[in-house]
């Protein structure tokens, strides 16, 4: 965490509410995108991302700089997405997945089909496996960062990733993916 971020968090904790906007601007895309990949619904992602920032603001007094702010807010975001998914197991088809800013337009039909199969398989994973896949492959975070976000050991992250890959293969084997 850089000094600027540290100072801003301190000021927000002291009651300088307006300073919080800096943190929202800095992390909004990351929080939105990680929730989007967990829930696969744009509207839900936007709604939950806003809730995450409001909740983080309300709880910022309990942030003691023991972890990175980024990990702290990601953890709130992942928990919010998991909580949402538990209640509402309705995923959009992969064809409805965001195209804006992605490379989707450049993909060949085969790639699109393969990606749909992968997303469909990821959808069928339990949230604990889905979250490590999203954080590792899509957010490209290190095991240490994932461990901090999920509040588990690095070994646990590796073990979940190992299981998640095997489960994905097993799901994809039922299709013509391989």
């Amino acid at each position, binding site marked *: 965490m850089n000094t600027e971020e540290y100072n801003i968090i301190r000021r*927000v*904790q*002291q*009651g300088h*509410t*307006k300073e*919080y*906007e800096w943190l*929202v*601007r800095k992390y*909004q*895309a990351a929080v*939105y*995108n990680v929730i*989007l*990949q967990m829930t696969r619904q*744009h509207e839900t992602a*936007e709604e939950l*991302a*806003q*809730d995450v*920032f*409001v*909740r983080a*603001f*309300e*709880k*910022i*007094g*309990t942030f003691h700089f023991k972890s990175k702010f980024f990990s702290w807010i990601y*953890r*709130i975001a992942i*928990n919010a997405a*998991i*909580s949402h998914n*538990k*209640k509402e197991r309705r995923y959009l088809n992969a064809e409805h*997945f*965001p195209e*804006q*800013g*992605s*490379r*989707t337009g450049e*993909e060949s039909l085969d790639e699109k089909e393969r*990606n749909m199969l*992968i997303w469909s398989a990821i959808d069928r994973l339990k949230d604990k496996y889905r979250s490590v*896949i999203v954080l590792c*492959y*899509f957010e490209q975070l290190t095991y240490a960062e994932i461990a901090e976000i999920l*509040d588990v050991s690095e070994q646990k992250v*590796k073990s979940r990733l*190992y299981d998640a*890959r*095997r489960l*994905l*293969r097993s799901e*994809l*084997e039922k299709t013509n993916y*391989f």
Partner: protein
Amino acid sequence: MPGITKILERLVDKRLEDTLSDDEARHLDRLLAASADARKYASDMEKLDRSLKAMPKPLVKPDMSRAVMDRVQKTGAQQGGARNISLYRRFLSERRQLLKYAAVLLVGFMIGSAVIMVMSPDRIIPGREEAVATMAARSGQTLSFASDTWQLHVSPVVVDQMIILILSVKADDPLEVIIGYDPQAYRMTRIKPLIGDAGTDAAPERGMIRFGSAGDMVYQVLLNQLTGVTSPILFEINKDGKLVYQRDIFLQ
């Protein structure tokens, strides 16, 4: 498949992670040479790994700062509340014992209130709520929701890492009441019927407690908070297999 062993799976995984030692690499080569199934497994896993790495990432850049700040300004008073949490926690650690006694008294009061609510048919219930919503609740506050045929009262008490929920339901017809929680955030330690009991069913690994309910029921549920992260507790009422009421409650 015969060639796919746990060892093979582990070694292929290590190869994907690029953490194979020379000895392990040689062992893996031997396993692959000996089995077509093993080769297929390794090839599938490598293809999957490559595909996952190459998946298009959504790069949406929303600007929600204004919407968030509007909401934050509106709940500005809670900012003070957030700051007070540290003081509250410090007070808890120093006065934990005293607080536990106070909590016991409060729980007793809550149980009494819940019983009165269930037993008093003419009790005035606050206005009918939306069927599905999220709300915040403070420790010690009683939340009351009602329809023409049922009433639900929830009294949460938060003591340090422990959440005591007193749940009272009064229903003309059989209902199913479900409490949902994130099992990574909370551990259910106790469910106890205080008045009536139409059957309880808990699935702690899925974060779900189910109560049958008809007539007057009061239950006590104890949850232990596992992390410092706030996670909502879901209350759901189903009637004749249909969801009639759902609410997420964030305990403060």
